[in-house]
């Protein structure tokens, strides 16, 4: 569980986050949504400790990240898996080395044990026979799956995903979404996904947090988001023609 209390973040005179309060539940896929420029990525980087908020506290289970010393923060980061927007795979390493990287850095097991674990997670993300290929030699969807494998190889307790579907076709995007949700449930981890893809909200949004101009204006589930009367949320949700038509059909049926 991650708890956020009154988090503020500015860059110069520009206030990006203006006092966010929320909780992200364990064993659920928690989505942060909002328009571009609403502060989603800055919020994510505050959660990860890459940005320091000027005000407010972020609790990982019982302890605030602000109260942790460098060593405690380092230990916390070993429990975090992160899926970056572009995958952020290391170009100079092949797929096997990329996935093995966190194991090499943080564990002292034998190489054969590392290899077994790497093969197991690659199999889990439905990737086989790619061990010796380099990131540039595989497709964008496969790169995302490798990045998921790298994020979960060290059995993290927290999984963060920054726009995991960007640049993917709808079918591959659904596969990635489902994979993230399955892994969350299987390992009972706290997963936070930043997205502006409404398909992801429908598929995996067990808890949805909506940001607008640095403020948390709505939170609920993927079922509730389609029923809410909140103007900002409905403007966002029904901004695409597809969802407008779905709403028209629903209204007619009602």
């Amino acid at each position, binding site marked *: 569980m991650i708890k956020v209390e009154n988090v503020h973040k500015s860059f110069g005179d520009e206030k990006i986050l203006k006092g966010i309060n929320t909780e992200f539940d364990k064993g659920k896929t928690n989505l942060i949504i909002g328009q571009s420029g609403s502060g989603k990525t800055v919020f994510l980087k505050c959660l*990860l400790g*890459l940005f320091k908020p000027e005000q407010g506290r972020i609790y990982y289970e019982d302890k605030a990240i602000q109260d942790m010393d*460098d060593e405690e*923060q*380092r*230990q*916390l*980061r*070993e429990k*975090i898996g*992160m899926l*970056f*927007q*572009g995958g*952020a*795979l*290391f*170009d100079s390493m092949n797929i096997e080395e990329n996935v093995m*990287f*966190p194991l*090499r*850095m*943080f564990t002292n097991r034998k190489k054969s044990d590392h290899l077994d674990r790497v093969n197991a997670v690659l199999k889990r993300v439905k990737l086989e026979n790619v061990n010796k290929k380099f990131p540039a030699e595989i497709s964008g969807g496969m790169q995302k799956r490798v990045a998921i494998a790298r994020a979960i190889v060290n059995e993290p307790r927290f999984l*963060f995903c920054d726009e995991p579907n960007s640049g993917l076709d709808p079918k591959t995007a659904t596969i990635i979404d489902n994979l993230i949700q399955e892994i969350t449930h299987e390992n009972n981890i706290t997963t936070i996904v930043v997205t502006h893809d409404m398909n992801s909200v429908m598929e995996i949004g067990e808890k949805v947090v909506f940001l607008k101009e640095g403020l948390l204006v709505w939170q609920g589930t993927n079922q509730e988001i389609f029923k809410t009367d909140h103007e900002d949320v409905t403007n966002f949700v029904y901004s695409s023609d597809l969802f407008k038509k779905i709403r028209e059909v629903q209204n007619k049926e009602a």
Partner: protein
Amino acid sequence: MKYLHDIGSYFLMLKRVFGSFTKTSVLRHLILKEINDLIITSLPIVAFISFFVGGVVAIQTALNMDNPIIPKTLIGFATRQSVILEFAPTFMSIIMAGKVGSFITSSIGSMRVTEQIDALEVMGINSLNYLVFPKIVALMFYPFVIVVSMFLGIMGGWVAGVQGGFVSSSDFLAGVQEGFIPYQLFYAFFKTLVFSFILATVPSWQGFYMKGGALEVGKASTNSFVWTSVLIIAANYIITQLLLS
């Protein structure tokens, strides 16, 4: 004001490079890789340039000696002094700022652009130690490159001088041995070590703190070459004043 900020940021980077070390087994592997990328792959171009510049120094000296009183041994002497004191340590370092410096900046800059550095930070790895420290250690082997450059530079002078008919082999070799002061070798290697530190850290700083996309990686590489060269020339002047004057 920006320069002061940049200088401060450079020294803060150095502080972080030597803090929170990466696991030794991983570091060992990284250092060996950097020795290959930065040192071994530089040897062919260093050998080529050194040999021919040494030859040109010998020919230029010979062509400018029109007074019969000046002994032919001066060709060997001038070649040795030019190569050992300036060409090999200083001008080879400027060439390395282009080859090694741009490589370091563009590789770290690309990692910044593609969020690979963020990935290291999120994992709790000191990205500066992981990326920059192996480069500093690898470039401590840079004096070895300079030894090769010195040897091939003098060799080039000997080949050009003797084969071109400017000087006999014995006169050239006598000139090379004439008035040799071992302290000058210490001076040359001392400044080479200082240059190697500049070669490792300034391009790393340029790459690590760059902002933007692919275009900015190119700009950072250019800035890296300019600033590394400027610092090498400035350091060369200061060290020469301190050690030789």
